């Protein structure tokens, strides 16, 4: 005030003017805390980490800066053309005499900042293939140890433990306690998942929390969480308790459960179903075995019931009968043959009688036999001195040949 009302105007340096304007601006209650809507252009992320950009509307523009200390809290990336609402103060950069907006917070105009961040990260990870179905690992059928990365005091762990205890108390549960909301949450969750991978102490990991607003669930939408899940060699089931909304963790996880309870259901088999399965397998075992035995028994019975086994004497009897029959037949045949022979004999005797040489002898003929009892029919072969037997009807005369005189047929 003194300066302005002074009659003899002093000459000021540039610095003094800029410094004065800065003081004015910095003390203005309106400029100190201001919200501006505009579109980003000339965006530059400087290597120092500070962001520089121009905010503009249809007819005007203003320079803006966001220091590293403020922009690290940004949950989405700034891009040219993006419509935003920025909160900050207007001040002057004394060196250039340029006033500008010092931004402390930026929200996307229209949709929420978190929403934008979510979409951006989702697109990025999807492009990297982190959501691919081939990347999904199968869950163990019967996990012996289950790692749970969640708050040890929340509703989620209670739900999970209740279900696991009822459904499959055989599995041991190891809880890695973490904060599930707030600034440290994502890092802690990622550390928990990495811990289980390092120690290899569990067969499957559940990570999640109960439902809440998008801000509450944010740890499960952060890149560090997503990467830890994607890098896990142990299958991870996400269990963020919001049935309808998917978190980034859900997309990266090997299996997404709609709630923590559902995750517990999905991770273990039911001991009751297992017992049923076991007893059904046991009855199948008995049945299959008994059937094998029964089949053999039936085959054996079929053998035993075959005639030769059932009545081994049958064949003997049958053959005996046949034998008897043959025997009888043989006897009959023999008798017949004998009878026949007798008849023929009688007949022949009659014939023989008719042809008997005795009758001829009685009429004066004789039968001459030589020494070998052959009948002599010719003089040839008879020599002097041979003994001959002359048989007559009433006896024999043994005589010695005195002379042989063949009959001369030519005479």
């Amino acid at each position, binding site marked *: 005030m003194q300066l302005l009302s002074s009659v003899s105007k002093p000459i000021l340096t540039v610095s003094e003017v800029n410094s004065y304007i800065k003081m004015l601006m910095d003390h203005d209650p309106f400029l100190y805390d201001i919200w501006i809507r505009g579109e980003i252009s000339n965006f530059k992320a400087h290597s120092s980490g500070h962001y520089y950009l121009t905010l503009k509307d249809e007819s005007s523009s203003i320079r803006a800066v966001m220091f590293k200390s403020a922009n690290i809290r940004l949950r989405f990336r700034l891009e040219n053309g993006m419509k935003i609402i920025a909160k900050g103060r207007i001040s002057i950069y004394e060196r250039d005499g340029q006033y500008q907006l010092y931004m402390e917070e930026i929200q996307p105009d229209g949709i929420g900042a978190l929403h934008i961040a979510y979409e951006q990260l989702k697109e990025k990870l999807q492009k990297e293939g982190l959501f691919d179905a081939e990347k999904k690992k199968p869950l163990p059928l019967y996990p*012996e140890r289950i790692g749970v990365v969640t708050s040890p005091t929340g509703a989620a762990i209670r739900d999970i433990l209740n279900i696991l*205890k009822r459904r499959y108390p055989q599995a041991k549960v190891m*809880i890695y306690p973490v904060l599930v909301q707030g600034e440290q949450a994502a890092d802690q969750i990622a550390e928990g998942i990495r811990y289980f991978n390092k120690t290899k102490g569990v067969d499957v990991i559940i990570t999640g929390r109960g439902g809440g607003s998008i801000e509450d669930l944010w740890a499960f939408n952060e890149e560090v969480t997503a990467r830890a899940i994607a890098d896990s060699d142990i299958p991870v089931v996400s269990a963020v308790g919001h049935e309808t909304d998917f978190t980034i963790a859900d997309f990266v996880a090997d299996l997404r459960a709609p709630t923590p309870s559902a995750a517990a259901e999905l991770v273990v088999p039911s001991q009751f179903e297992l017992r049923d399965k076991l007893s059904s397998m046991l009855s199948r*075992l008995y049945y299959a075995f008994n059937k094998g035995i029964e089949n053999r028994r039936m085959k054996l019975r079929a053998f035993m019931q075959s005639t030769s086994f059932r009545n081994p004497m049958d064949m003997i009897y049958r053959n005996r009968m046949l034998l008897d029959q043959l025997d009888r037949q043989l006897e009959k045949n023999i008798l017949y043959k004998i009878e026949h022979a007798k008849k023929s004999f009688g007949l022949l005797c009659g014939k023989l009688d008719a042809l008997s040489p005795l009758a001829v002898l009685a009429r004066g003929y004789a039968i001459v036999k030589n020494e070998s009892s052959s009948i002599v029919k010719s003089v040839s072969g008879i020599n002097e001195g041979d003994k001959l037997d002359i048989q007559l009807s009433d006896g024999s005369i043994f005589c010695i040949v005195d002379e042989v005189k063949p009959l001369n047929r030519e005479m």
Partner: protein
Amino acid sequence: MNNDNKLSFEQAMKELEDIVRKLEDGELTLEESINLFQNGVKLSNQCSKMLDEVEHKVSILIKDKNGEVVERDFDAAPKEDLDEF
């Protein structure tokens, strides 16, 4: 729970299923069926024993003063250890 000479529940179940399937398929000698059957009964007993004998165990991993992770029984863990969560 699972040492080298003892089958895991999963292995035992799988073996039992294989045995049942083999027996159901038939085409075995009597000796083979008897051996499989005996093995199956043994495995089934093992499995149900495994289902019966296990108690529900829950532990929590807590960092001690030196930042080392130690395992404690969850139900017995002191409340103040969980306060920060």
